[in-house]
């Protein structure tokens, strides 16, 4: 039922995060092999509540989520002070 976390998918996630959070710190962990975890630390999150911070990360991954290639991802965000 859940998605397959292939190296290709991880590379696509990496690609999109690099574009959206250019130069800032992020991590992709393959969690338990079924649910990847994406950790992003960005100054862009300043002033945003958690929901909006996560929406920004989801926004970067929008096409993957829309196509169904990715439908479950654990997101952790931190504000880079």
């Amino acid at each position, binding site marked *: *039922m*859940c998605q397959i976390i292939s190296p290709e998918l991880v590379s696509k996630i990496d690609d999109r995060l690099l574009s959206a959070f250019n130069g800032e710190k992020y991590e992709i962990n393959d969690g*338990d092999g*079924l*649910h990847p975890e994406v950790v992003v630390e960005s100054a862009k999150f300043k002033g945003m509540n*958690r*929901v909006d911070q*996560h*929406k920004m990360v*989801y926004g970067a991954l*929008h096409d993957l*989520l*829309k196509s169904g290639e990715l*439908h*479950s*991802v*654990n*997101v*952790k965000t931190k504000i880079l002070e």
Partner: protein
Amino acid sequence: MFSLFTVFIPSFEVMTQRALKNENSNHHEKIEELIHKHPVFIFMKGTPDQPMCRFSALVMDIFENLRVNVESYNVLEDPLMREAIKDYTDWPTLPQIFIDGNFIGGADILQELNDNGELKKMLPGNSNE
């Protein structure tokens, strides 16, 4: 008379769009009803007794440990509702948690709020002691 007749029939496309819009707004109405009726409401995969995905199970664990009564909707039962809730919150994943009608986020946000003690303060005091 023939031309009068054709003016009053909307195109098939217009009718389909209207039908879809209607369907979506029906679901949005249902969502609003549910989240305002119940203090803690979860749109999840599966049921509280049988969560069908790891994150839905995690959410249930958190609320069980806090002894909070929750109500839920199993999106696996209705693919249209599954899409409607994502559209409503503009949030692409499930589960989705509402407290007092407000969208809180997904399992990861809930976990964070629980870990730092914020979640307890947000609860409407409906623990079943």
